[in-house]
C-alpha cells in the first residue's frame, strides 16, 4: 500500500440532508460529500455549487449545522448534522 491509499489520508465524508427544491435539484434526499479542503461551510457551498449549478438560481441558500443556521466561515465536523436550506415558505 502506498501512503496515499491509507485510510487516514482519505478525507472524511459529510452527509448533507436535502429539503424542498434542493432535493429535486439533486435528485435524492441526502448527499455524501468529502470534507472540503478548508473544512468550512463556505468550502461545502463551493463544492455544491460546482456540482449543481441550478442551486445558483435559488432566491437564497443556507447551510444548517446541528439545527442552527451556519456562517460560511464556520468549521464542519464529520459527525455534524448538515442540511441545505433553500428559501423557506412556512405559514
Amino acid at each position: 500500500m502506498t501512503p496515499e491509499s491509507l485510510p487516514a489520508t482519505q478525507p472524511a465524508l459529510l452527509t448533507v440532508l436535502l429539503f424542498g427544491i434542493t432535493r429535486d435539484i439533486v435528485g435524492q434526499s441526502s448527499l455524501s460529500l468529502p470534507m472540503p479542503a478548508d473544512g468550512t461551510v463556505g468550502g461545502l457551498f463551493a463544492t455544491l455549487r460546482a456540482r449543481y449549478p441550478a442551486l445558483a438560481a435559488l432566491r437564497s441558500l443556507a447551510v444548517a449545522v446541528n439545527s442552527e443556521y451556519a456562517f460560511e466561515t464556520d468549521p464542519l465536523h464529520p459527525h455534524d448534522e448538515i442540511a441545505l436550506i433553500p428559501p423557506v415558505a412556512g405559514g
Partner: protein
Amino acid sequence: MLEISDQPLDVAAVLRQVEAPGAGAVNAFVGTVRNQAGGRPVRRLHYEAYMPMALRQLEHVVAETRRRWPMLQAVAVAHRVGTLVIGDVAVVVAVSTPHRAESFAACQFLIDTLKQTVPIWKREEYEDGTEWVAAHP
C-alpha cells in the same frame, strides 16, 4: 405549546393554550390554504418541515419575541405539514398579553419571523404541475 404536526390543527385548542388570568388580550393569526396564488388556481399544497431544526428555530423565534415583548404571557404555535386542501389551516399563532396593542405587535412579529427562519417548505399543486413557493426570485 410549539407543535409541527401532520394532523389537522385545532384552532380553538391553540387559543386555549394562551389563556392566562393576567392576560386581557389574545391575538391569533390563522393561515389557511387559498384557492389561488398570483391568480393561478391552486388545487393542493404540500408542506414539509426539517425536524428537529424547525422546532429549534421556532424556539428561537419565540425567545426573540419574548425578549422584545417582556410582558408576553403565553405563546402557542401550531404548524401543519403534509398535504393540505383549500381552506385547511396551515398555521396558528396565538399570543396573550396584558394589553391589546402588544398582542397585535407580538403576534405579527412572531408569524413574520417564523416565515423567514423556520425550515418549512411548501409546494403548490396546480392543474398542470407543481412549484416550490418562493424558491426562485
